[in-house]
């Protein structure tokens, strides 16, 4: 990944995004005419989107345009908001995730989530990671559990920093470490898709760079959808970028396309900083 170029307003694109070849693998998740209502007000007006396997797709757009709302549709976290109602169809591997017969517990094990603010449980680092595997009964002995904890922490690039203090509280880590702990916690249940809602907005530039590098490594094994307000970040980490505006998906194409040759004037206005 290129170094973050904070001082330029214009978005610089990393070399890797140069290739026009889009990840035309299998469709991992797809949304058809997804609308979300909070009480009577409609926050999303019918979103259609396909997300491919092992790609990183970034959601950008002005505040309040529905990025988080759409992200939460993908693992049914909107269920936890009493006033929220979702219509339309969302599939994971061609299986409708809003099908009443589908087990939401299973779904969330497959589609993990990392939140804006690091939210480690007030437990030890070990227990934080072990939480998910225990919940889903992924292991039946302590050695297996320790293995999962170690491998998850390794994948999240945190192992070396915490291996000597797995019993220390997770809340005692720095913000960036906490966020990586949360990523490790999500990885520990071996999800297929990881949703990230502004995972770096509470972090300093160095911690942000570490997370971005981590995302780059993870995309080999996971499909990742990331919401960000930082267009540099979208450009650096994502293969494709989706621009949301007022509850609509305005444009979705290769990240390079969006930033160099936006099709819609709203997209252009947004990425050139004319609003948002």
């Amino acid at each position, binding site marked *: 990944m290129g170094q973050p170029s904070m001082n330029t307003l214009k978005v610089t694109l990393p070399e890797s995004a140069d290739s026009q070849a889009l990840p035309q693998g299998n469709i991992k998740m797809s949304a058809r005419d997804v609308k979300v209502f909070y009480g009577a007000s409609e926050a999303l007006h019918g979103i259609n989107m396909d997300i491919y396997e092992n790609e990183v797709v970034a959601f950008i757009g002005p505040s309040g345009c529905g990025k988080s709302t759409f992200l939460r549709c993908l693992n049914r976290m909107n269920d936890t908001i009493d006033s929220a109602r979702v219509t339309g169809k969302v599939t994971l591997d061609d299986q409708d995730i809003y099908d009443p017969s589908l087990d939401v517990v299973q779904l969330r094990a497959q589609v993990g989530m990392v939140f804006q603010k690091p*939210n480690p449980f007030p437990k030890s680092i070990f227990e934080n990671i072990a939480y998910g595997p225990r919940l889903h009964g992924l292991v039946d002995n302590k050695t297996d559990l320790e293995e999962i904890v170690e491998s998850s922490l390794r994948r999240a690039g945190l192992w070396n920093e915490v291996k000597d203090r797995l019993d220390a509280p997770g809340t005692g880590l720095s913000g960036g470490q906490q966020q990586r702990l949360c990523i490790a916690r999500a990885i520990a249940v071996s999800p297929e898709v990881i949703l990230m809602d502004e995972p770096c907005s509470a972090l300093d530039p160095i911690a942000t760079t570490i997370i971005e590098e981590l995302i780059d490594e993870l995309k080999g094994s996971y499909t990742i959808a990331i919401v960000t307000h930082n267009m540099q970040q979208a450009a650096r980490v994502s293969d494709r970028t989706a621009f949301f505006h007022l509850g609509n998906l305005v444009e979705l194409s290769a990240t390079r396309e969006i930033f160099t040759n936006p099709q819609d004037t709203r997209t252009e206005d947004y990425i050139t900083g004319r609003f948002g």
Partner: protein
Amino acid sequence: MSNMLLITLLLGLMAIAYQLGLVRSKGVAATTSGTGVKMHSRPTYHAMLVALWVGVPAALIFAVWSLFQPGIIESMVLAQLPPEMMPATENDVRILLRRIHNLSGGFGLIEEAAAYELNAARYMAELRSISQMLMIALMASVAATALVWTRKRIHPLLRARNQVEQAVRVLLVACSAVAILTTIGIVLSMIGEAMRFFSFVSPMDFFFGTTWNPRFSTVGTDGQTGFGMLPLLWGTMMIALIALAVAVPVGLMAAIFLSEYASDRVRAVAKPIIEVLAGIPTIVYGFFALITVGPFLANFGASLGLEIRATSAITAGLVMGIMIIPFISSLSDDIITQVPKSLRDGSLGLGATKSETIRKVVLPAALPGIVGAILLAASRAIGETMIVVLAAGNSPVLTANPFEAVSTMTVTIVNQLTGDLDFASPQSLVAFALGLTLFVITLLLNVVALVIVRKYREQYE
């Protein structure tokens, strides 16, 4: 002149001083306009400062004078008594002074007043009026001097605003000091009386004695017996434990329901209703226990073949448990609600169900606070009096059977202090020793609870 009138006058004087100060400072302000000098403070601040200078020193004189006048006058009166009439014991001196007091105030006496008493009374009245006049003169001159001086000193550069702020600070500090000093005073007097008790009964016998039976020991002899506190402490603990055994599960479940499952509308209605339980006067709980719960338990026990006394530890404990439910449910509800939503989302996002999230994340996160709430409820239960007076049966014996009658420290304090008694005897002084012990126990519980709750708060700040 009565003190009320004096205070009213002083307030009136302050109002006048305020007006004078206001007029004067406005005058000063007018002279400065156009000269480029700016008034540091607005006229009202100058006026307030004048009023404070007029009122406060005079009021302080008044307070100090009222504090020392009676003592000084009494000793002067005693000094001029004919030496042969001087009573021998301190108690008799007090009685004599009381009589002289009444005579000088024009009240009647039970017995005929002796001539020397009449003389003393006349002398006392004389001293009092002299002292009163002296005080008023002093106050008036101080107030007048202050008025003249402060009014004159009003100047554009005088930092009146800051000085008034300072005065307000002092006032606030003084008010908090009153509250703190009162607490310290109560504790000290309790300690003093308890010490007097321990001059009759050794602390070892009191704290570790297992028999409570002080009524039958004769007053004044050495080696008072039957002052063992343990049966009372045990009774207190047993009832508090029964109460907690009732209140903790019920209160906690109620809190979980309110915070996690109830809709906003239900919560808005249910929470205040539960809190009403805490507002019911304890005497009402007491007769509820005595008239309803006790007989019910006795009958219920009989149908099971158990012997349950109508007034027993279990009756008092049950009803007390109901009383402290809201302490636990309300506090725990607040604490559970404070657990950040992000933690819940984190758990739900990993595929945990709602109840798993509550059990494995929310409750552990809230646990310190909940323990604090339980300790607060426990200290409430330990200090509770009315319910146990009526429903515990008042039988100070060491028993492990909750169906028997017991007695508690609070009940015993009530018993020892009611009726016809001599406040110098260990029988009534023991109330202070018990009260002090109770105070220390509840204080410790409260401190521990507050520390825990505070720690918990910091965690999510």
